[in-house]
């Protein structure tokens, strides 16, 4: 279905030599609460960079600072080589922002949401119209152009948000939780569009609490927890560094998991107990599963899978990503 869609124009190269985003000791305080507690981030041109972490980790606060909307409390931040405290409008002119909750205007048409928005960037009406048609085609909403936004499904609204964030052909696209709340099919459609943008060389910066999203889209990511970065690297690097190749998941009856964990401790590099299952971290999951059965244990279910970023997160913070 994607072949028919026209591509948006290649992104303007810009005049930035250094990193697109550079943060040093970045902090955000709201009164007495510190949401971001000193993080260092560097995003290069053309990179797809992710902030992975649970709700409340400080991802959205970071994104609002990077979006040159929320003032920096402490530390240094340069976006496209500029300081958001003094160059906010110039920075925002070259960013695309797709917020976590759609901020589309429900009362005007799908197409008007794009044309009106382009005007905020100082684009001419003709240019807004041309670009709107191009982008509607890119996000496969051409046939909905004259409809109301409220008639769109959640996935369509998100695609329209993405289209709107691209109206100014941004150097960097910021996406806050781009697929949260979407059904699996809609998520894949969004990922596929974002992947295309990535191929076109658009720098993507996204936050997510879905490990599969981070693995799908990110070249490099940081894992955030309680306002701090606890790990950084490519998804594969992080898994290699903080987990084993495979995981064997064993489910037993309620309350039995602690005892089981003690009995199988020696069968894996590491054992984690969750409320509903025991995880055996090992490079050979099948062998571990066989060994468990040889000890006469009878789990209600056994699943052998590859390690994911979820396991990395569990290892680093002792908690799961999605509670």
């Amino acid at each position, binding site marked *: 279905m994607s072949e028919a869609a026209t591509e948006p124009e290649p992104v303007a190269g810009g005049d930035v030599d250094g990193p697109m985003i550079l943060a040093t000791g970045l902090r955000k305080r*709201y009164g007495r609460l510190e949401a971001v507690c000193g993080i260092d981030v560097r995003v290069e041109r053309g990179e797809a960079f992710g902030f992975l972490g649970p709700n409340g980790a400080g991802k959205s606060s970071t994104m*609002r600072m990077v*979006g040159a*909307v*929320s*003032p920096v409390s402490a530390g240094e931040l340069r976006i496209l080589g500029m300081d958001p405290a003094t160059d*906010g*409008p*110039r920075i*925002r*002119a070259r*960013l695309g*922002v797709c*917020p976590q*909750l759609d*901020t*589309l*205007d*429900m*009362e*005007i048409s799908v197409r*008007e949401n794009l*044309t*009106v*928005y382009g*005007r*905020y*960037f*100082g684009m001419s*009406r003709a240019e807004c119209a041309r670009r709107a048609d191009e982008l509607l085609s890119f996000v496969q909403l051409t046939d909905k152009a004259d409809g109301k936004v409220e008639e769109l499904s959640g996935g369509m609204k998100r695609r329209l948000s993405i289209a*709107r*964030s691209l109206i*100014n052909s941004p150097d960097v696209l910021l996406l806050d939780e781009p697929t949260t709340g979407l059904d699996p099919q809609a998520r894949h459609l969004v990922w596929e569009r974002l992947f295309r943008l990535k191929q076109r060389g658009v720098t993507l910066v996204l936050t997510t609490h879905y490990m599969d999203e981070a693995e799908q889209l990110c070249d490099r990511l940081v894992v955030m927890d309680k306002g701090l970065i606890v790990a950084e690297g490519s998804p594969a690097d992080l898994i290699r560094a903080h987990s084993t190749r495979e995981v064997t998941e064993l489910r037993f009856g309620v309350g039995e998991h602690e005892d089981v964990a003690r009995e199988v401790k020696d069968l894996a590099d590491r054992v984690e107990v969750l409320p509903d299952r025991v995880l055996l971290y090992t490079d050979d999951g099948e062998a571990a599963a066989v060994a468990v059965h040889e000890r006469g244990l009878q789990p209600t279910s056994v699943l052998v899978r590859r390690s994911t970023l979820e396991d990395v997160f569990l290892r680093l913070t002792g908690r799961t990503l999605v509670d």
Partner: protein
Amino acid sequence: MEMVLRQFDYWATTYRRTWRGSVVSTFVMPLFYLLGMGVGLGTFVDDRSRSELPGAVSYLEFIGPGLLATMVMMTAVFESTYPVYGNIKWAKVYESMLATPLTVGHVLNGHLLYVAFRVATMSVVFVVVLTGFGVVDSVAGGLAAVAVAVLIGMAHATPVFAYSAKIDSDDGFAPLFRLGLLPMFLFSGAFFPTENLPDGIEWLAYAMPVWHGVEVCRDVTLGMVDWTADVGHLAYLVTWVVVGWALARWSFGNRLAEGT
């Protein structure tokens, strides 16, 4: 200013959806008020107290410009409550605008300009209706009334913008309407001379911008301009606009830059 005008297409699109309904109500409302209160009640009032109204005008002439000033106040306040609160909290229109080169000041001024436009269009219609009732003394007087009406609108819109961006729940509008707007409407001097009020309330009425608006509106519409007094009234209204704008700017900055 160029940055503020970048929002023109947005507000024009919004207006295109609603203007038909609003034109009808802005035409019908003054017509009904003037018929009911000016003509109906006026006939009754004029019989006994014509000479007691300032300038010995008819009740219709007394109440017409006063209605313009108070209706403008009502419209400006309503346009500055739910639309502002909704753009922050529900539709998040401002948030989406602030992700672009626009700043908080631009967004605030864009919306205020739209309110000024709404007030101006309704004032024009109102003045035309007043002319139909023979209340407007001259074309210049009518045009001046429209200009004063826009000033009255802004004197109320700016502080209410500040208030709407400050409150955490739309429950905050009930006290504004009942304890703020309703007494301002009744004690504005539009329906009877404020001297008729008990002393305490009379002084409260003088502190409210709307009374000053009513006075100037009446003077310019009826061609009875008292330069000293009217310049004072206008200066007072301008002060409300300036202070109100500063409060609105502060309130918008707090609310929108910190993202709640």
